[in-house]
């Protein structure tokens, strides 16, 4: 029988990271859960105390919450969906050999490495209805007859912020999928060629099944990140006009900065549960496929 020696080094090495994660993620998260059951409004400190499910009941009655929930679903579906489509196309292009590929790969990362606050401010000026470059281009191309105040009207504000988040997220998908594509064995394509497969057949029968797990993980990460994203919308519209760009995370942020921490905590718990509803089946299905 082989006697196993207890080695404490691995535990010691991960301890600092674990401590940091516990203190900056789990402690505040537990605190948020506790606060969600309290009347915790710093504007009225004398009324602070246990409130049971009052915050959750109020959320159910809150029309702004329902509106923000619908906006969040649209924000994630269109935002992540188009990021995936365009990111995949970009990854396929960058996987081909061509002159200057390294340069194009570097440049295509710019939206991803640009801070969200800067992206928000930049696109706010691009969309500006008086001095924005987008209106200028569209006018010169003759596509519009008059300037469109993209961020000032409800009908265009939300699509505008969605386009911005798509632009920001494409490089991340491209980068991750490109890494996946580079791991696909060339033999599979050679075999497909011998079998007479065309480009689409190779894409759907070789490429996509080979990078399925990368697609799963990347999409899941983006769903969570995009659902939690505040910086872009906050800097472009603040959630307006008329709450038309207020997603749940922006609503939570606005409520928290209004100092109603109990209510904003309750909303954040609900958002977390909603994300878990997506994330758990998603990951379980991914691991099940791996086992198969």
């Amino acid at each position, binding site marked *: 029988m082989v006697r196993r020696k207890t080695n404490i080094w691995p535990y010691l090495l991960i301890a600092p990271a674990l401590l940091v994660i516990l203190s*900056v*993620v789990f*402690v*505040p*998260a537990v*605190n*948020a*859960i506790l*606060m969600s059951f309290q009347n*915790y409004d*710093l*504007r*009225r*400190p*004398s009324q602070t105390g246990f409130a049971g499910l009052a915050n959750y009941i109020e959320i159910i009655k809150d029309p702004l919450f329902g509106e923000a929930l619908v906006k969040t679903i649209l924000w994630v579906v269109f935002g992540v969906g188009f990021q995936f489509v365009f990111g995949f196309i970009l990854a396929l292009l960058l996987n081909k050999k061509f002159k200057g590929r390294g340069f194009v790969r570097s440049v295509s990362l710019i939206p991803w490495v640009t801070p969200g606050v800067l992206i928000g401010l930049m696109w706010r000026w691009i969309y*500006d*209805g*008086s001095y924005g470059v987008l209106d200028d281009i569209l006018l010169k191309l003759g596509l519009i007859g*008059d300037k469109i*105040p993209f*961020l*000032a*009207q*409800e009908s265009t*504000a939300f699509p505008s912020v969605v386009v911005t988040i798509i632009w920001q997220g494409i490089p991340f998908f491209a980068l991750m999928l490109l890494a996946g594509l580079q791991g696909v064995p060339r033999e599979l394509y050679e075999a497909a060629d011998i079998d007479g497969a065309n480009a689409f057949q190779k894409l759907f029968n070789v490429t996509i099944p080979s990078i399925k797990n990368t697609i799963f993980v990347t999409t*899941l*990460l983006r769903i*969570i990140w995009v659902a*939690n994203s505040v910086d872009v919308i906050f800097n472009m*519209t*603040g*959630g*307006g*006009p*008329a*709450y038309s760009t*207020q997603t749940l*995370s922006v609503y*939570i942020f*606005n409520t928290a*900065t*209004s*100092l109603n*921490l109990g209510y*904003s*905590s309750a909303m*954040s*718990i609900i*958002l*977390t549960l909603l*994300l*878990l509803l997506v*994330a*758990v089946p*998603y*990951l*379980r299905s*991914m*691991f099940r496929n*791996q086992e198969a």
Partner: protein
Amino acid sequence: MKKILSIVLAAATAVSVMAGCSKGETGSQAGSGTGTGAAATSLTYWYWADNSSYSAKMQEIVKDFNANNKSKVKVTAQEYPWDGGAYSQNLFTAAMGGGGPDIATFKLTSTPQFTANKLLANLDSYISKWSEKDDIDKSLYDIMKQASGTNSIYVMPWNTQVLYVYYRPSMFKAAGVSVPKTYDEFLTACKKLTRDTNGDGKTDVYGFSMRGSKGGQEPWGSFIQARGGDFTNFASPEAIAGMQDFINLYKNHYAPPTAPSDGFNETVANFKSGKAAMVIHHIGSAADMVKTLGNDVDAFVFPAGKKQWTSLGDTENVVFDKCQNKDAAFEFVAYMATGKGQETWCTATGNVPVSKRVQKLPAFQNNKFMKVSIAGQPHAGIFPVRDTTTDWINTVWPNTVAAALSGKTTAAGAMQTLQKGLYGK
């Protein structure tokens, strides 16, 4: 095992949503709080400045105070952006977290949340012993008391800004419009000044540069009061009529189509670029307007309808309760209120001084914008200071007015929402 792993992984990633909401993680910008310990010899002061020139002036003022104060303290001035009012929230977050400054530039609307959490020093005993207390009008002290909801003063007056209407004389001349003397004339002027100047069928100049974003409640308040409304009952027929006027200006295209999202920068840019003939702001913009437009800018007090009202912008200083050298801190806020700090700052920014002595100086008596400010002062007032006011200004007002401007809600519906947002009923 993999199932458990998947759940743990999902939970770990998703739980970060909650983490950001907790009190302990609210992105405090805590200052050094150097004024701790008995008879602290250094104090931190937070302020905001509208441009780099004002910023340099503040540093100069603090340098002068540090060289000459009786308490032998050193004040370190730290600048934070106003950021549409986020300054006040950042200050509050820092103070609640035990950080923040010893002294800070302040807005009255924030008073209830700071006093409710016992963050500010009571200045009553300092002011009662202060030899220059009568240099500030008693009414201002009363406003400070009213804002705190107590009979005590927690906020030291510093300077005020009275909102008025900037206009382009050349555009008035071209449109055949004279300076409005009544509210109805003002509305007519908005219509007449909206023009297609090059005959291409599109509007090139709008009558009024409307502010629909944060801070827009101040000019908007003049419309409500001009129809006879007030801020205790937004749902009154008079207040609704004022709101309808505001909506009509936008719907009839007398204001730029970007108005619902236009804040300070956009409204002033519209005016300076010639896209709008009138804009409402205070004297803080005067130097910049003159620099851009030369003599082609003048001002008038928002005219009277059934009532006359304009917004009194206020900026004060506060001493925090945690400050360990309140005597020195009071010496600083007194220097800013009636001393050389008052004179230097108000001269540089053009803000209306609270010191009667400084108001009489030639620099303030010979300035046309200062004259309009002083003429507007009798009609100037503030919005009700409640614990809901900050949220009402930052979220409720801009979103509700945007909905009204787009036709999503009526004037009456919007005013009921505004009433509920501020008063809870």
